[in-house]
Every structure is written in C-alpha cells, then in structure tokens.
C-alpha cells in the first residue's frame, strides 16, 4: 500500500508543506553527526502531485456518490500491515480508473511509487524508469529514489518484494465496495437465517461461527446505509445489535448514530473497516459447515460479503472454544492472521559494552569520530566475537546503528552497576516499597509523567501546554551560564563542568514553555541531557536539560501526538499520534526516519524495545503492533484487548511485553512466539502505567482507579504453555489465575496513577496528580 498517499491524505490542505513523504531512508550509519545529508526531496512535490490524492479520493466519492466535506477525518485508509493483496487490488483498480480518465501522469507516479510492476499495458515506464522528460521527471525521480532507498535500506532485512497478483481485479467491485446489493428488504432475512443456522450447529462449531456475527452485521448495516436505505438500516440495527459481543459496544455506539452515507465520509474508522478485511480464524470443519450452508441456501449476499470483506484464516484441527476466541478477539480488525506473527524477532538484549577497559573504547571512539562507519562495524564485530557469548536471540550488535558511548555514559553505566549490586531481589515474599510522587495543585491537569532511569529527575506534562521538570534529589536544577559568561570560564580547570553551571538559576523545578496544546507524552533521554515532549499541537519537542530551552520541534504528525519515547540508547525516538502512524526519528533529523503505518486508529502509546531494534505501538483500534526499526515492517500483531491500549511495557530481558488498556486488563505477550500468555484482571479503570521491576519478577500496574497493583510476572511467564501445538496454532488456554498472580493492591487516596518507575534498587515510584474532587 502506498504510504505516501495515505499520509498525504491525512494532512489538511493548509499544512501541505509539512508532510514527510520519504517512507524509508537508511538509518544513519553514524548517529551523532550533524544533520548534513537530510533529504530535502519531500518538499519538492509540485501541484501536479498534490492533486493526485484528491483525484483519488474524488474518484472514490464520485463512484460512491459521496459528497466532500471538510472534517477531521480522512479519506479511506487501508491497513498497510496485513492485507497486501487487497491493497494491490485497490491500487490496480485505481490505476485503471485513472487511466480511463486520461490522468496518465498520475498513473505513472502512482505505479512507480507503489512499486507496481507494469504488467498490463504498453507504458514504457518500468520500476526504475527515468520518468518523463518534463518537469515532473524530477519529482518522479525523487519519489522513485525514495522507494529504491527503501528497498536498499535494509540489506540484511527479510523484506521480500511485494507479491504482485497477476489476475486483473474488477475495478467496479473494488471501488464500489457496497454498490452491488441484493434486495435491501431481505437483509434481515439473510442475517437471521444465518443466525438461526449458527445457533443450530453443534456447540463446538457455534463459538467459532459466532465470530461471523459482528463483521457481517457491520458490513450489512453499512451497506444499507451506503445505499440510502436509512430506515431499513435502522430496523436492521435495532433487531440485531443486541446479539453482538459486549466488547463491541463502543463500535456499535458509533454505528447507531451513522445513518447517512454522508456520515460515512467523515468516519475514518468505519471507512477502514470497509476497506480492510476483518480477519477471522475458523477451523476447517466449521468453515466447511458454513460454506455448505450458504451454498445450499443460496445466501449469496452473505457469501459475497464473506468473500469480499472478510479474511477467513482456516486452520486444521480442533475448533476453538468460546473463551479461546474471546481472549483473542475484540480488535477493530479481527484477529491476527497466523502467518503475521511468524517473522523472526530478535528479542534478546544487546551485549553490554565492556567499560572496564575504557582505554580501548576511547581509541575506538577516536577513530570513529573521524567518520568511518564501516570501520566501526568491523571493530565492533571483532569485539563482539571476543567477548562472552551473545544471546542467540539478540540482534546483531550493529543491526541498528547506535550512538557511541560517551565518557559520561560510561560513568553512568558504572553507577548503574554499583547500584545494581545493592538491588533488592523482589519476589512474591519480598514486595517493593512504593513511593508516591503526588502532584499537588495541578489544577491545569497532569497529562504525562516520566522519571529518568536513575530517578534523579521527574518531568510532568500538563494540559496547559507546559512541561515542568523537578529534581527528585536535593540537588537543584541549574542552567548553563550564558555564552558571555561561559567565555570567562577557565576551560582547563578540572571542575569546568561545575563551573559552567549558573548557580543563580538553581531551583527545584523548571518550567518549559513552547507547546501550544496539552502535553500528552514526555520522555527523558537515557543520558538525562534531553527531554522529549509530545503535544496536541502536532509537534514533538526536544528540550535541553542543560539550558532548559527547546532545541528542536519535530513536525510531521500534524495531528495530536499522543506519545513519544526515547530509545534506551538515546538518539532515536518514536512518536505516535492521531494520524494513525508511528514515526521513528533521530534527534538530529527534522524528518522521520521511518513511518510505521498500519494501525486503523490513533496510535496511543509507543515504546522502544530494550535492544532498540523494535518499537511497539498500541492503538485505539485495540491492537498492538511490533515494528522492526531496521526495515519498518510490522513483525508482531497482537489482538485481544477490548479497548484502546494506553500503556505498554517490555520486560527487562526483552522477551515479554505487557499491555494495559481502557478495559482494565493487563495482557502479557511472548514476543518470540507471538502469543498471548497471560491476562491480569483486577483493575476497574484504564491502566495508564505499567512497569516491570528491574529483574522482571514483578509487574506493577497503575490505573485511573487510584490503585497500584503488583503482579507475579515470573509465575505468569512460567505457567505459560509452551508446547509446540500452542506455539504453532496460537490457540492458547489462558488460566484464569489473576487472583493468584496478584501480589498486592495499594490504594492512593484520590490520585490516579499516571506513571510507574522502578529505581535501580527496585524501589517502586508512582506518580499522579492528586485529585481533590
């Protein structure tokens, strides 16, 4: 799917200059360098290109009879992660449409950008074509180069060329997804006949086939709405909405208000639903049963919908039970397809640098600073082979270029190790002490909190657009002196680092002003020199904690940015927002290095994997995706939450992931196998904070219900069934053992828990704003 136009479509017309079109650029091989070679191509797209997505959407709306209206939402976006063939079909259909309308240039551009092989006609352009000789050629080239960079970006990646379907899709079918129809008055009959059938089948199949209810219901309802059968749609809704699973309540609420085709235009979530395929997993037996039934009854309407809008992932073996199905369903896009989670994920940790021999490292650094990235790689490799054996599941040390360790980083590592020796070993018998950091008088609304790894600083993002940084230690925060004053300093002195600080500015907290909307996410850099904040104003800002000023405003999302997170090694960070993509940035680049597109709704939270090679995102579409930083692929896709995901946490060993949602449940995932391995029930409200203890033995969860709960994560992981069958099919039996796993529940008086943090010695810090009401 062409990310380019998808992103373009999200962008309101007034902000055209900001879109970031290059989807893939090679990650910097030498991070830490000044941003010299930043791509400037994206800005050059001219008006001709600008019109293209509009043509696209206009075309869609012409065929479907939509009227344009300026709303928050975007034209239909399709899922980029999973259903590739669908995308291909759509693309080819669009191409045909364009061609028919003599928009040849657009055709070329679209084709080239989408890496479509030229299969069907005589256009001379091929995948690497030089473009036409006119002014568009340059743009086409830049687009093209971007695409080719994308494929070249990941030499070691497993990125396979996008498969191209050879059969010609029927244009009208794809573009007018809902135009063909049976007799609208018979929809109720169709549906109820299927309902009767499913209710009459054997129990073992009923649970599986019941999965069909929801997608069928939605599609049929939308089809009725789409074809202006308003009253029939309403009747249909009233009759069958009660049959749907309770966890689809939120969707039904949206649906019930939607009775006109015009409404569909602005509702991106439902447009996504329409264009993407809902994934069901059904055993072969059940599927055969269904197929036979529909063919016998000539229930073509239903059959067509199944064919066109559902993706049925058929597996051999025993049908799944109701609880098995329920644990995995609930997402907006159905379940995960089995093959999606088969990709290899290097979840192991990177080897720790040997800082006992600082001399070697310094030599190494000195050489690298001269700008020979390749040299560095070989050096590192040789070092890696020398050292103690590496985690077999870990990625190569240089899979992602990581910043060099500075002297201060090494000192910090030494501090970390010293602290680690004093760490308290936690366990069910030895629970951590909890310190609560209450934000008092936070009338302006506390929206985000972060601690530094060493727990020395505390940052709060507020709804009044401010970011405040507090010192959590008696040491006060000081700014660096002004340039004029710095000139007077003896730069040779030993305590020059102390001298550069302006004692007059010492205070317990500092305010950072710059955002123009609520700050939804804050994240400290690992070296404590920077702070990131993401805001409703569509920007991510990088602040210096030396001068307490804003260094960079990263523009790109153009819509509220819900979360941002620094890589554990610094330099990179990830952000996710309302535009439904997550972006990977490097601090010295003003444009993103990667755009992770695939979520059907807002990306609500983002986290880096401890080895910095992966990024996990949680979304309002109730799914979690794990992305490979190297090539931008979605390598894991987790469904099972019944509400938007608001918190994510990796276990310290990188093997497991915990996710918390508005449904009050914490789900545990095995990244390597791509399986759900636990469900922790207990919270009664949205879980906004999750954190593993430093050894990964305890999982702490904090929620809007004013509690902190501690869970025995070791036990949860150990109880996991790891037999081959489960791993192969993904059919897990989750024991309902939340009560056994719950080690403690701690109330605050009236303070929702916004953030949790384990100090290096395993003291648990919780933070939240005291709520006087």
């Amino acid at each position: 799917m062409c990310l380019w136009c998808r992103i373009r479509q999200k962008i309101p017309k007034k902000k055209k200059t900001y879109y970031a079109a290059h989807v893939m650029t090679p990650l910097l091989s030498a991070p830490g360098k000044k941003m010299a070679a930043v791509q400037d191509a994206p800005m050059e797209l001219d008006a001709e290109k600008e019109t293209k997505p509009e043509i696209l959407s206009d075309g869609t709306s012409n065929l479907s009879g939509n009227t344009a209206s300026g709303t928050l939402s975007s034209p239909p976006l399709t899922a980029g992660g999973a259903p590739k063939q669908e995308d291909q079909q759509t693309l080819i259909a669009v191409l045909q449409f364009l061609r028919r309308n003599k928009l040849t240039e657009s055709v070329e551009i679209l084709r080239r950008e989408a890496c479509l092989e030229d299969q069907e006609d005589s256009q001379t352009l091929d995948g690497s074509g030089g473009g036409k000789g006119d002014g568009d050629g340059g743009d086409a080239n830049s687009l093209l180069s971007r695409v080719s960079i994308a494929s070249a970006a990941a030499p070691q990646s497993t990125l396979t060329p996008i498969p191209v379907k050879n059969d010609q899709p029927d244009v009208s079918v794809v573009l007018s997804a809902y135009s063909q129809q049976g007799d609208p008055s018979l929809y109720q009959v169709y549906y109820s006949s299927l309902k009767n059938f499913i209710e009459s089948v054997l129990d073992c199949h009923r649970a599986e086939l019941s999965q069909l209810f929801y997608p069928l219901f939605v599609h049929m309802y939308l089809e009725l709405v789409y074809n202006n059968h308003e009253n029939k749609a309403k009747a249909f809704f009233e009759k069958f909405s009660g049959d749907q699973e309770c966890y689809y309540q939120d969707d039904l609420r949206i649906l019930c208000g939607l009775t006109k085709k015009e409404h569909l235009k602005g509702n991106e979530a439902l447009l996504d639903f329409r264009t993407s395929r809902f994934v069901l997993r059904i055993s072969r037996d059940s599927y055969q049963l269904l197929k036979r039934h529909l063919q016998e009854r000539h229930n073509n309407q239903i059959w067509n919908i199944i064919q066109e809008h559902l993706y049925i992932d058929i597996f051999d073996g025993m049908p799944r039970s109701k609880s098995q199905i329920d644990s995995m369903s609930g997402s907006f896009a159905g379940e995960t397809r089995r093959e999606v989670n088969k990709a290899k994920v290097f979840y192991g940790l990177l080897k720790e640098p040997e800082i006992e021999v600082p001399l070697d490292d310094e030599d190494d650094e000195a050489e690298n600073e001269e700008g020979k990235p390749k040299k560095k790689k070989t050096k590192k490799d040789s070092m890696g082979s020398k050292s103690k054996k590496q985690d077999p599941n870990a990625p190569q040390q240089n899979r992602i270029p990581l910043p060099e360790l500075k002297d201060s980083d090494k000192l910090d590592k030494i501090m970390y190790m010293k602290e680690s020796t004093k760490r308290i070993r936690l366990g069910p018998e030895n629970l951590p002490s909890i310190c609560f950091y209450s934000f008092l008088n936070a009338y302006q609304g506390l929206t985000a909190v972060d601690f530094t790894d060493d727990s020395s600083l505390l940052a709060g993002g507020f709804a009044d657009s401010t970011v405040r940084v507090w010192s959590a230690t008696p040491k006060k925060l000081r700014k660096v002196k002004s340039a004029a004053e710095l000139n007077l300093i003896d730069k040779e002195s030993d305590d020059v680092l102390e001298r550069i600080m302006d004692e007059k500015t010492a205070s317990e907290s500092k305010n950072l002003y710059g955002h123009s909307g609520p700050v939804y996410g804050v994240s400290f850099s690992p070296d404590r020199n920077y702070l990131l904040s993401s805001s409703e104003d569509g920007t991510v800002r990088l602040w210096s904690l030396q001068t307490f000023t804003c260094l960079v405003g990263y523009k790109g999302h153009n819509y509220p940015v819900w979360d941002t997170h620094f890589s554990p090694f610094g330099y990179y960070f990830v952000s996710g927002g309302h535009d439904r993509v997550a972006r990977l940035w490097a601090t010295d680049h003003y444009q993103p290095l990667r755009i992770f597109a695939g979520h059907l709704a807002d990306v609500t939270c983002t986290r880096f994997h401890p080895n910095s090679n992966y990024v996990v995102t949680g979304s309002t579409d109730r799914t979690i995706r794990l992305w490979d930083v190297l090539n931008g692929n979605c390598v894991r896709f987790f469904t099972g939450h019944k509400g938007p995901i608001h918190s994510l946490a990796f276990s310290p060993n990188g093997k497991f992931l915990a996710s918390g949602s508005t449904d009050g449940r914490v789900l545990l995932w095995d990244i390597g196998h791509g399986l759900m391995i636990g469900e922790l029930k207990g919270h009664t409200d949205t879980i906004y904070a999750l954190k593993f203890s430093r050894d990964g033995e305890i999982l702490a969860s904090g929620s809007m219900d004013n509690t902190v709960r501690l869970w025995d994560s070791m036990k949860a992981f150990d109880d996991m069934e790891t037999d081959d069958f489960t791993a192969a099919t993904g059919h897990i039996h989750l024991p309902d053992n939340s009560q056994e796993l719950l080690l403690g529940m701690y109330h605050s008086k009236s303070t929702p828990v916004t953030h949790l943090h384990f100090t290096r010695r395993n003291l648990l810090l919780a933070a939240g704003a005291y709520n006087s009401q």
Partner: protein
Amino acid sequence: CTSTAMTEREERRFAEVPRESIKLMAESSGVELSEEVAALLAEDVCYRLREATQNSSQFMRHAKRRKLSVEDLNRALRWSNTETICGYGAQDALPFRPLKEGELFFVEDREINLVELALATNIPKGCAETMVRVHVSYLDGKGNLEPQGTVPTAVQSLSEDLLKYYQQITRAILGEDPHLMKVALLDLQSNSKIAALLPYFVYVISGVKSVSHDLDQLNRLLHMVKSLVQNPYLYLGSYVRSLVSSVMYCILEPLAASINPLNDHWTLRDYAALLLSHIFWTHGDLVSGLYHQILLSLQKVLSDPVRPLCSHYGAVVGLHALGWKAVERVLYPHLPAYWANLQAVLDDYSVSNAQVKADGHKVYGAILVAVERLLKMKALSLTLAAEGSGAGLPGTTTGAVSFRENSPGLSPPPEPLSEPPLGIASHLQAGGAGCPWEEWTPVSLPAMYCELYSFFGDSLAVRFSTGLPLGGVPPPGPCQPLEGRKEPASSAPNLENTRKMPQLTASMNISPRQDGSPRMEPQPPSLAATVPGRSLARSSSSSVSRSRSSSSRPGRSTSQSRDIFPKARFPLPQAGPPAFSFIIGGRQMGRRCQGRRFQTSFSPTPPLTTHPPRAYAHKLPVIGRVSKPVRRWTCSHYSLHLPL
C-alpha cells in the same frame, strides 16, 4: 442562551435534536425552513454532535481524566475545522432550565458584573504553585499505618484552623485594640505554620492602596509587612515583590492622608523606607531583581517636579534607605537640578506657601541626612580601601602626593574587591547596560563635598562633624587650592571616565550592608512593633547612638548612620556648640601610618561664628544659593586640604 429542546431516548442513550428545534432556531435567525430540510438538518446536527463528542472523548482519555470538559469538545471541533464554542469554560455546570409556559428549555446564563468582579475585596482562593510531594506509601509492600494516607492535605486548601487564625489575626491587626495588635504582630513574626496563609496576608497588605486616607491603617499594614518579613519560617518567594510594592506605595505616593498637615505621614514614610531597607538587607536574594527597578522609580519621582514634596521626600528617604550608593548614584547627580526647585519653595515667604515651605524643609532635611551619610560612607570606604591597598602602594608621602597630583579630581581609590558580591549589587552591575546610570562615574569625595557644601553650607559641616569624634589636630590654615579644585572636580569624571571604569564596577560591588545598616543592629529600634512608642524609641535611639558614637572607634560610622532618621527630623536638635574640625578617612589609618592618604580638616573660622550654624534654618535661602555669593562664602569659610 439557546432554546434547544432535547429529548433523550432511553434505548439509544444519545441526544437528538428534533426538527422543531431546528425550525425554531432557523426562525430566530430569520430563515424559513421546509419540513423536509429541517428534518435532514436535524439528523445531520445530531450526527455531528455525536461525532464531536466521540472525538472529544479521546482528548479526555489522553488527558487522563474521567470528566469530559468543554475544552475537550473544543479541541475536537478545532481539529475538524469547526468553530469552537465560547462561554462554557466555567467550572460550575450551567443549569439547564425549562420554562413551563412556552415549553422552552434554556441554559441559564446570568450576566456578570465585571466591575463588581474586579473590585471585589473578598480574598481569592489561593492557587498555589504546582508541586510534587513524595510520600512513602507502602514500605516493603506492607502499607502504612494509615492505610490510605498518601496525600498530604495541608497544601490543598486552607484548613479551618488556618482560616480562623487568618481572620483573627487580620481583625486584631486592623482593629482598634493596640494591645491585641501587638500580640497579633508578635505571633505573625514567629508563627511557623502560616506559610499557607502568606498569599492571603500579602493580599491584605496590598490593600494599602485602598486605605491611603487612613494613616493608622497604613501603619498597621506596614507593621504586618514587617512581621512577615521578620518571620524566619516564612519563605516569601515571589510574594516579596508584592510586599515591596506595597511599601513603595507608602513611601512614594502622595497619600490622601497627607492632605491634612496634621497627619504625620512623614513618619509613615520614614518607617516604610526603613522597612524597605530592612527587606533589602534581609531578603536580598529575593529582591535583587527589584533593586534596579526601585532605583528607577525613585529617580522618576525625584525628577518629576509636578509631584508633591511629600513624594519627593519619600524618594529621598527611599534612596537613603537603599544605601549610600543609591544616594550617590541617583540623588547626588540629581541634586543641582532639584535644588533649584527646592530653593524656590524655600525662598517663598508668602503665607499661602507656609505649608509647602514646611514640606520643603522636610525634604531639605532628608536630603541633608542622605548626603551626609553619603559623605561619611564614602570617606569610610576610602579609608578601608586605602587601608587595604596600603600594602600594595608605596606607603610614603611622596607616593601619596604623586597619587594626588596625578589625579587632581581625586578619584576614589579602588574599592575593596574582596567584598562578597551580593545579589543586589551584582544585579546592579548586570543591569548597568543601557541604564541611565551608564555614564555615571564616581565623583571624588572632595569634589562631592565641595558641591554639597555649596548647597548646604555650614549645616552640612556641622552635622557632619557631630557624628564623628574629634580626632587629630586640625591643621590650621584654610586651603587655598579649593577654588582651583572646583573646576577639576567637574571635569575629572570625564577625564577619568574610561580609565576608571574597572573601579566603577568594583565600587558597585559593595553591598549595602557595608554602609551601616539596620542589619548591623540586632533590631532597629524604630521598627518596634508599637506605633505609640515609636517616637520615644526614636529619640532614645538617637541619643543612644550618639553616646555610642562618642565611645566608638573613629571612622566606624556604621553605627551612627542608624540615627539618620531621627536626625532627618526638622528642625534638628542642636547638640551644643559644634566643634568644627573633622577628618575624612578617620584615624584608623593613622594607626598604621602607612595608609594615611589624606586628611581633611575643617577648623572653626571667624565667619562661622558670625554665621552660627544653628541659625541655618533661617539662613537657608542664603546659604543654599548656588549663585556667586555663596561661592565666595564657601571659599572663605571652608577649608579642605591634605596635610602631606
């Protein structure tokens, strides 16, 4: 005020706007809608409403709230390029009322009287600084003794006790009973638990502007300031600015109370000025940024001839309170210009001018006191500097002579650099760029003395000498070069301008604490908590300091400068027959012999007896004249020489 009739259907649980409402709304804006259009519109409006609500809920979720706010809805509207709604940001829910007769529903939206709101005297609820409190909630997972006690309540809102305390204290201080007031002020001075009330008290004190007609109330409020400032448990923080502005108001403003000459607003100003200096020297770190600003405003008042004399008086005592450096930098350069105005007032003997003239005398006295201390302190600083640099310089007479000859204007020797730079001073230094004092250069002491003497004549000399003990044998003979020196004195600053710049900055490093301050004393007597006892305290303090001064070591004038205020009172108590010999630079250096730079002596001369200084009040117009007779006069009666 909208008149939307909304119905709520149970089963769907969302609001619907019926077509009737749409039609009504259309009619109210003068549009006729057909039934069909209204129905369509109604449906669309419903949908858009629901959509906006839906979109707004995500803002609520990310703000980690449970309650959907108007702000959330507005954000959703803004992002969908829709106009936001205004006027619904209030904390309290707007009541939605039905009107029975017309089946009309409306949101009650009362008019707000802005004037009333702005002038409301009730104390606003404190909105304290956002802060983070750490609390060990659960030790080893066991929980605290108080199971839920994680949140301290003190900072949230005022407890009942505190509120009661606040009411009692304010009532006592502003009330009639002086004894009660004393007790309240004492408690305010020492209570360690009133931090939460600070903003309230500051607010009360800021009410000085509304009671400018009531000297008594002003006094009480100033005492409240003093108590707060002296309370060691209070961190004034940014509230100190508000306090300072209240104090400044009392110093500078032509208070309504001063219309009546019977009101002793002079004392109030004195007291406020003293308080100001007290604040500066006890909370220098907090108010450092204000020093410059205050100097500016004082200067502005002083240079504004339209202002009444009592304002000028305030400016002078304010400058005096800020230390001799302030006097030197602001008052002294401004004196020639100001003198003309004052002269005019004082020269006017008409009956109608009597009151103004009396005020003029007040100002005159205040200036006199200020410049006297300026001279004393400058001399002292010279002494110290000389003493400090004595080792470095060849301490011979020839060296001293060459020093003098090389700098005919006698620019001040370098100030001691070892002074700990204080907040105020360093600010002054930093704020020097672009300020009107950029061109200011220190005037040498003798030149300064000459000039001041030209204004004040003997009264200056008399008062100057009274504070200092007699010492050293006054070298006889009037010094002739005085006449010649006066010209260099004026040109010297220019000459020295560039060369002496480092010294300028160095001299500004002097903290006001050095120049004799209330700080030196454990407790300024005139800061006593009681109003009635003040005058008594003052007179005693002056006598105390006087007696002390006689026994104190020469040159240490720090202790004497304490009684400047009493002295400023006019007419002055004449302290017996004056002895007219004095030494600038004191005798301290004499002990070391080395650092003896110069010695100025003033010996009683015949003209002095003919014009006894006690009569200067009457002779003022004459001696104050800057015209030539004065020059001659000074020339003949004034001797300043360096016995080398």
